[in-house]
């Protein structure tokens, strides 16, 4: 299945790109995707530990199952003293 990945703010700058598309095996979870990206890309492994993940615009936990066409975003901590 194909999923779209999006990076924002510091994550976008660290990754050097705003988005990409990945082919993943059916049954891949958010946590498994994170594990794969960390293994493949040292830059991804250095993203902040308290980064959150959204799937189709909702925050999701690592056990969330991905599906064909999902949009997955990596969301560093949102801005502070506004």
């Amino acid at each position, binding site marked *: 299945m194909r999923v779209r990945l*999006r990076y*924002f*703010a*510091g994550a*976008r*700058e*660290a990754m050097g790109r705003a988005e990409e598309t990945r082919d993943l095996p059916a049954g891949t979870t*958010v*946590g498994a995707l*994170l594990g794969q990206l*960390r293994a493949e890309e040292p830059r991804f*492994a*250095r*993203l*902040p*530990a*308290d*980064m*959150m*993940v*959204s799937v189709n*615009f909702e*925050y*999701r*936990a*690592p056990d969330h199952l991905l599906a064909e066409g999902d949009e997955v*975003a990596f*969301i*560093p*901590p*949102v*801005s*502070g*003293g*506004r």
Partner: protein
Amino acid sequence: MFEITREVLTADQVAEAVRAPDCGGVVTFLGTVRSPSRGRTVLYLEYEAYPEMAVRKMQQIAEEIRERWGITRVAIRHRVGRLEVGEASVAIAVAAPHRREAFEACEYAIARLKRIVPVWKKEVWADGEEWIGWEGTEEVQPVGAPAARA
């Protein structure tokens, strides 16, 4: 009215959007670019949003306010792009029959916005820049959903 915009924000835009004859009070919040910030002189800020998700999260905040206070008149706008010191990055208005609830709900809205609406800012100083809230780290831990709301 829930939006991410590149336009200048004003209090009137959001206040006018929520005003109604059965509401005796309108509370508006403007969050503005401060300088100095954490001891450094700010030249300007760059705001970036995940707009599709940010608008949905603003709508979620309005829904939470409806559940908690029965208030239906909420407007939230967030600006992105380059902002100068003193300009407003966020504008929120809440209208309610009684002012106590309008104050509470408006303050709730900005607190929630800062927790769940995906908008980031980069402070630019004379000698550098930094994404606020962003601290690149060597350590990687499991990534999950934010804590449930209070």
